[in-house]
């Protein structure tokens, strides 16, 4: 059985060190949130998890590190945040960046329990909800959409329209349905607004992928690949 190595940023002292000892995992301590320093510590079969002390780092650095770890090709396992109480508010809308958190002053047995629990569950952890369709990928937690690996710069309504269509592939929606389901509020332009947004989305998808949104003559639009269109 291999030994779990858990990344620990920026230090591993006091109750945190104790929790590691109790759990029986090895800390790999990176003094800074720099990714190359972290990579140098990485064992060959990777980290099993990460404990990031957001109370001991500038908060934005801690968040940015979490994001970078999430975006790495190679995962780091569950991320546990250590926080000061006043930082709790800042977690809003960043829930996807970490798996668990502990508020200081740290209780050794609580931290150890969470660490063990998270490591045990690792592997069947839920990842951020995504829509994957052919070359299109949408991360519903970060609101980022990419096509063939290229990130798309979408406005809010473009994003919402694409999400709605891609969530229901190969279903045909009338303009009126799209208006009420996606817009559903004050806007100018009636059903042609949908046409305008589809046109914009196709432009942003680029020529090669514009066909992902198909016009169904005298009905409306549907999302799907060409192959599915012929069946």
């Amino acid at each position, binding site marked *: 059985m291999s030994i779990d190595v858990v990344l620990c940023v920026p230090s591993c002292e006091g109750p945190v060190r104790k929790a590691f000892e109790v759990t029986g995992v090895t800390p790999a301590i990176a003094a800074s949130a720099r990714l190359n320093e972290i990579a140098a510590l990485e064992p060959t079969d990777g980290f099993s998890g990460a404990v990031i002390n957001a109370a001991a780092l500038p908060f934005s650095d801690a968040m940015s590190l979490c994001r970078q770890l999430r975006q790495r090709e190679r995962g780091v396992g569950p991320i546990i945040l250590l926080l000061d109480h006043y930082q709790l508010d800042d977690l809003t*809308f960043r829930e996807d960046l970490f798996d668990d958190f502990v508020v200081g002053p740290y209780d050794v047995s609580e931290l150890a329990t969470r660490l063990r629990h998270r490591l045990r569950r690792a592997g069947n952890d839920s990842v951020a909800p995504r829509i994957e369709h052919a070359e299109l990928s949408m991360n519903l937690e970060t609101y980022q959409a990419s096509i063939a690996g290229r990130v798309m710069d979408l*406005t809010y309504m473009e994003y919402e329209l694409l999400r709605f269509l891609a969530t229901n592939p190969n279903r045909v929606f009338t303009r009126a349905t799209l208006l009420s389901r996606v817009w559903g509020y004050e806007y*100018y332009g009636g059903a042609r607004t949908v046409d305008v947004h589809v046109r914009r989305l196709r432009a942003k998808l680029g020529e090669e992928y514009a066909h992902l949104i198909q016009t169904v003559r005298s009905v409306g639009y549907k999302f799907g690949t060409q192959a599915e269109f012929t069946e």
Partner: protein
Amino acid sequence: MSRMQSQAQYVLRTVEERGVRFVQLWFTDVLGRHKAFHVTPAELEDALDQGMTFDGSAIDGFSRTTESDLLARPDLTTFQLLPWYEPDEGVARVFCDIVNIDGSPFDGCPRQQLRRVLDNARAQGYTFFVAPEMEFFYFTDLDPYAGPVPIDRGSYFDLSPDDTASQLRRQTVLTLEEMGIGVEHAQHEDAPGQHEIDLRYTDALTMADTVMSLRHVVKELARQYGVAASFMPKPLIGVQGSGMHTHLSLWRDEKNAFIGEHTYGLSDLAAKFIAGLLKHAPEITAVTNQWVNSYKRLVPGSEAPVGVEWAHYDAGALVRVPSVKPGRIDSTRVEYRAPDSAANPYLAFAVILAAGLRGVMGNYELPKEGKRTATLPQSLSEALNLMEKSTLMHETLGSHLVEWFLRNKRAEWDGYRSQVTPFELERYLPLL
């Protein structure tokens, strides 16, 4: 979560995920000039939540006697990354409405003026679509003393070897498309250095925002290529100026309400709308053609309208009814040819729509094709006098804005008429 909150969340999260360093809060003054605040991501949440307070007296058309503090309130649906910045120093923009401190709409905000006219049309069941053709020049620089030098010598539809101007125009179109701005086509125009980008229709508010974006993108990319772009209505003597021919259609119950049984496939409503445009054209010209220089474009023989008349083909007509391609009946529209590309698009679209709707409400009768019923004002001064007397303009734009506009523009006119021009020196000095 409310719609506003989820929009704000989308914006804040995108700023964070994409490493955006600055967000530009864009707005427009009464003369259509592009203004911006630059906020850092740290300040953004507050700006989205409460708007940005600023001193309105510093901005043309925003000044008032009583109190001058105003609020710029971002319209989150317009949040967009600007594609010409490097990914690691991302910059995004969002358009703002200007409101009073108590949150009520501010009269001097062109965006809200247009909104008001559009709301009015919507109350009557109409949606207004516009598609402008934007003309402009590429010059080597914009030194007013050296005079403008076009960067190419091409002409209408010329397919020239891949010169700077063609590359630049192509790059501009690609950038616009990346920003979600639909371009119908782009071409070399008649005059040397003159180019045209035709935009695909949208609702009028989106289009006015788009015109502001386009002018910014065209100028920014020209700068990157070491040249300069100008939307001045008539920069060169003897060749045509830069217009903003604007294609218009009204929709009702999701149908193009301009389609009908009349000549050229127009409806009764379209006929009345055109009649309204023609009747009120002289009084709205101060807004669609707002500079001293605008009237140098509106002269005979330069494909710009001079008289008030409508036609199917005549490129010199004020209102044209373009041919509709077979099977494309939904593209039935009318084209209003007076505006120039240096107009304030918000106010221009507002007064054009108001004029057309007057014709519809008042059951105006359409004059015969090609019959000249009036002439357009020949100078800014004449246009301002017509605007001042116009009930339509006061009702559409509100007296605060009209009065300020007249005051500002009369000062411009006074500055102009006290000049002694090269024309006068050449003609009179040796002779008189």
